């Protein structure tokens, strides 16, 4: 960008064209006071604190909204300016309470600081206390509007940064204040509880109920929840983690956080329920034991169960290093490839589908890149709740002009932003995607040059989709034909257009088909390998991408090198100095079946909780109970750990170094924030100890050394080292060499597999459809305030206060039909079981019910159907038949 030269207070200053006088001054270390300015918000010009004089311009313009110009002469301070600023402060003080000493923002308040700095003691005007709202509805923060100075930072943050739009400025004059829709308590609004408004408020008008002490020191690390991978800065006081802030240097979240990151990321770390000593089952009871005693027992029993009698579950929550060590242990020490983890349950169909279509089963473009798309098609992803910071950036892009097409049966927050919103029947995705392709081809909107040049197999698809006319597809999916046509045209008009999807696409018996269909659609419009294009599966867990990358799967070593490929096997045998099994191992669902039959005798589970996360949990419980020897390594006594023979206490993400690979394939560095709690050990250290005691010495100095071994054996991670990450390199794999910059966009020149492959796919219905006895369709998923099986989030006080327990969403018309009122207790049953929970009326489509799966007391997975996708073996969490009734 071009530079302009101006003078500020006699100093010659260079500034970027288009920047503001305020920015230019602050870059030159000239301080101008502000109240309504914030770096991450659009200029507002509301408070007039930042006024300056500009030669040739009458009056005193606000520097935060005045753009720099060549030759401009600016004075930032003289008597007149100071007088005017003092007047601004006096007017603000005139209706502001004068009890600073009892204000929660005392000593942190920007208004207070400025009155002191500019020497305003008394306002000297008639004092008028504002009759303003005190909103104490929210469990985490309080809105005391009599301390509000109407800078609108909260409103602008909520709209511009978060995109929730939960608050606006209401009324006018003396009664004006920021408030939610209808002026209700914020808890009853669409507020997402992210706390960004509280962070931005310059006064004590917005404050946390429990602000906590000042930290002694802060360390930056990575959020342990979703695959977005936001940077956190954790504050420590007296050895305890006491607060989280967004890391402004992280390119994903740029200093912002969602509710889980802000409150849930640390509140569980020092929770009193943390496991602090190993437990061993004696006479049916889990009793405390020493590390030696517990490990000796583990070693003895593992020695008896080598080969197919052993299986391990790695973990999508754990860093790459630990997952790598776990799969190495299973393969090299226990001589089995039966190691899997919950990625099977969320994106196995993505890995299978995208690998078949493109040659690589991951997000093709970066998160930042999404903002360049003209059109975004979102399906099966409740982005703002499950990947909130990605959701926020998506909303931001939409506000800047990106058009959103949404296919989702539920009235999710994104629906309000969509140009076209289609509510397909669950389980009919292949049909509508074929329908869109039908229209695009009919209307001549396909990018046939691209298809001819870069892809293969198109003819079969062209033939197949001929019969998927909008009318037919409308009958299958329930989406009006006209909407299908418009959605198809809009998607095809986007140059480029991107596709974002998640578990709503993958968790079906047709999951792999669904994924391949989306790949077809993207290739048809030539959207692959371009900035702002692509097919982007949002991965659920913080490190589900990494756990797959480093080989936590039964058929591949790290970097997706096949265990059945003799060359790959030889490479790992040489590196690990041992012989390795040649057949692929069992998947998670197969492991549990084998355990139930007594074929798997010893099961080693690290940081996973299949008792809540797997379908048909009654069955899972049976399988785990039937397992002769169950070892669970975790931070809390989870529902799964309660069934174990040995429980080993591990550390949390805050007590260690490591790396997570986020959903866009970017490897990020965890930093140890506090030392391991006494009695707890790092997962990889425990595994290495067991291996060594079993006669296969495994020892590493640090996580960094493990990463070096991963890099050596994994071509796509070849250039990734702790040194580079610590230097701030943003490395998305493939990153084969130490000087490679990483690959934010895949398939640019050609597809990983060479040509992109089209698959002609017929629609088949879901495995279990509603009938007379079970007339409703049940779908399951996550919600904003909780994560996965709730092991961490339900230990967080704030998140628990926000959503304390399980509920089921019901359409208003169904609620009327079953005579169920909002908040009433209901019973939901399927062929596999039955649970009781609270009804929430709204949001879902008619005939559909939705249950979040986080809650053990009403586990949604008691109900779900364990039928799996034939290729990826992913269970059908998103559709099963259910019955709804009022609780007796």
């Amino acid at each position, binding site marked *: 960008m071009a530079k302009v030269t101006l003078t500020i207070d006699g100093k010659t200053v260079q500034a970027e064209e288009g920047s503001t006088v305020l920015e230019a001054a602050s870059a030159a270390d000239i301080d101008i006071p502000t109240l309504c300015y914030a770096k991450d918000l659009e200029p507002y010009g509301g408070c007039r604190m930042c006024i300056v004089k500009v030669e040739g311009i009458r009056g005193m313009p606000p520097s935060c909204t005045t753009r720099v110009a060549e030759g401009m002469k600016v004075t930032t301070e003289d008597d007149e300016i100071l007088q005017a600023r003092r007047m601004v402060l006096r007017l603000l003080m005139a209706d502001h309470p004068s009890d600073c000493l*009892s204000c929660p923002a005392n000593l942190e308040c920007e208004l207070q600081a400025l009155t002191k700095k500019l020497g305003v003691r008394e306002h000297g005007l008639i004092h008028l*206390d*504002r*009759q*303003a*709202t*005190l*909103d*104490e509805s929210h469990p985490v923060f309080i809105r*005391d*509007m*009599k301390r509000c100075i109407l800078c609108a930072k909260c409103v602008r943050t909520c*709209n511009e940064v978060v995109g*929730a*739009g*939960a*608050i*606006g*400025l*209401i*009324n*006018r004059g003396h009664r004006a204040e920021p*408030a*939610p*829709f*209808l*002026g*209700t*308590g914020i*808890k*009853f*609004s*669409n*507020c997402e*509880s992210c706390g960004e408004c509280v962070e931005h408020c310059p006064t004590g008008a917005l404050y946390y109920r429990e602000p906590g002490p000042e930290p002694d020191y802060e360390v930056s690390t990575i959020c342990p929840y979703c695959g977005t991978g936001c940077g956190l800065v954790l504050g420590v006081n007296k050895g305890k983690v006491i607060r989280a802030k967004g890391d402004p240097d992280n390119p994903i979240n740029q200093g912002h956080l969602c509710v889980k990151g802000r409150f849930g990321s640390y509140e569980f770390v020092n929770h009193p329920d943390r496991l602090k000593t190993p437990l061993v089952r004696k006479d049916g009871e889990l009793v405390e034991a020493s590390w030696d005693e517990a490990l000796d027992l583990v070693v003895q029993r593992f020695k008896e169960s080598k080969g197919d009698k052993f299986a391990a579950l790695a973990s999508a929550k754990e860093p790459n290093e630990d997952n790598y060590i776990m799969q190495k242990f299973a393969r090299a020490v226990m001589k089995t490839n039966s190691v899997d983890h919950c990625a099977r349950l969320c994106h196995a169909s993505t890995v299978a589908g995208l690998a078949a279509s493109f040659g690589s089963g991951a997000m093709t473009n970066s998160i930042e890149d999404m903002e360049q798309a003209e059109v975004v098609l979102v399906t099966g992803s409740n982005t703002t709740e499950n990947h909130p910071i990605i959701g926020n950036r998506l909303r931001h892009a939409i506000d800047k002009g990106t058009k959103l097409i949404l296919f989702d049966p539920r*009235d999710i*927050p994104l629906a*309000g*932003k*969509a*140009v076209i919103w289609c509510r397909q029947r669950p389980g009919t995705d292949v049909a509508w995607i074929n329908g869109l392709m039908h229209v695009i081809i009919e209307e001549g909107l396909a990018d046939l040059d691209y298809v001819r040049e870069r892809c293969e197999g198109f003819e079969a698809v062209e033939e197949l989709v001929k019969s998927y006319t909008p009318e037919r597809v409308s009958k299958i999916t329930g989406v009006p034909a006209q909407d299908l046509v418009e959605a198809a045209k809009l998607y095809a008009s986007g140059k480029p257009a991107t596709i974002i999807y998640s578990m709503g696409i993958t968790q079906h018996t047709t999951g792999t088909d669904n994924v391949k269909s989306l790949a077809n659609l993207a290739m048809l419009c030539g959207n692959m390998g371009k900035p702002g294009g692509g097919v982007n599966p949002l991965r659920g867990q913080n490190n589900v991408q990494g756990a797959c990358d480093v080989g936590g799967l039964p058929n591949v070593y790290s970097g997706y090198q096949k265990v059945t490929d003799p060359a790959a096997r030889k490479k790992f045998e040489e590196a690990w100095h041992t012989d390795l099994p040649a057949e692929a191992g069992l998947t998670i669902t197969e492991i549990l079946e084998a355990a139930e039959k007594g074929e798997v005798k010893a099961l080693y589970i690290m940081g996973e909780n299949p008792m809540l996360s797997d379908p048909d949990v009654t069955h899972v419980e049976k399988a785990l109970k039937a397992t002769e020897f169950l070892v669970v390594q975790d931070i809390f006594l989870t529902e799964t750990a309660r069934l174990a023979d040995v429980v080993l206490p591990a550390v949390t993400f805050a007590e260690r170094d490591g790396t997570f690979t986020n959903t866009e394939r970017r490897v990020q560095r965890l930093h140890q924030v506090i030392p391991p709690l006494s009695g707890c050990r790092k997962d990889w250290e425990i595994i290495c100890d067991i291996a060594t005691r079993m006669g296969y010495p495994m020892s590493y100095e640090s996580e960094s050394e493990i990463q070096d071994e991963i890099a050596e054996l994994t071509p796509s991670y070849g250039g990734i080292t702790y040194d580079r990450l610590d230097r701030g390199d943003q490395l998305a794999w493939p990153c084969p060499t130490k000087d490679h910059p990483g690959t934010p966009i895949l398939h640019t020149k050609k597809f990983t597999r060479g040509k992109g492959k089209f698959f002609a796919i017929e629609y088949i219905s879901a495995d279990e459809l509603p009938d007379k006895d079970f007339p409703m369709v049940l779908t399951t998923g996550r919600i*904003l*305030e909780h994560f996965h099986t709730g092991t961490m989030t339900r230990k967080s006080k704030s998140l628990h206060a*926000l*959503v304390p327990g399980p509920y089921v969403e019901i*359409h*208003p*018309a169904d609620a009327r039909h079953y005579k169920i009122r*909002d908040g009433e207790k209901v019973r939901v049953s399927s062929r596999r079981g039955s649970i009781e929970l609270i009804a*929430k*009326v*709204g*949001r879902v489509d008619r005939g559909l019910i939705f249950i979040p799966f986080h809650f053990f007391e009403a586990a949604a997975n008691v109900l779900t159907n364990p039928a799996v996708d034939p290729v990826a073996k992913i269970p059908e969490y998103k559709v099963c038949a259910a019955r709804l009734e009022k609780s007796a």
Partner: protein
Amino acid sequence: MFESSNSKGVETWRKKIAGRFESKDQYLIPALQYIQGQEGYLPPEAMEAAARHLRMPKSKVFGVASFYAQFNFKPQGRHKITICRGTACHVRGSARLLAKVEENLGVHAGETTEDMSFTLETVACFGACALAPVAVVDGKVSGNQTVSKLKQSISDARAMDSGKPGHKSTVRIAGNRASKKNVNRQTSRKSSGRKGRK
């Protein structure tokens, strides 16, 4: 936390609004005027529908609507009485006038009678100070008001209604139910001015 909404009401309104206005920011105020023209006030589900159609946050719709005095958030009575409380009118006895009308109707200023027949309001100045005290009944401005003149207007209006209750009032009563929730919600907020900080 998501809030449940009356999606049927929202959907009906959304269709009505979408049939009349393009999905562009500039149609917010016309859409609000249309809703108020239909209903006499802005029902929450209609504002939500406007937000949906215009793809803007509903907090913004409410923010804009609450900025203008012309919009009502509660159902209005069939008749509207506005009494001026400006300085000139005050000097000439508008306080007593208001008190007597409040007594007669059994409501305070800003409220609507239970049978939905009258809404009583006040205004800061009509700009007709020469005629003080001023009141407006159903759009008709009249000066030099007295208690008995106003009482007469009220009974005239009642007489006019008694002939034909019918359709219009049922619509309003249905609206009233919806709004009561809303009223409760608003009054359940605490005013920090009175209660102070805890």
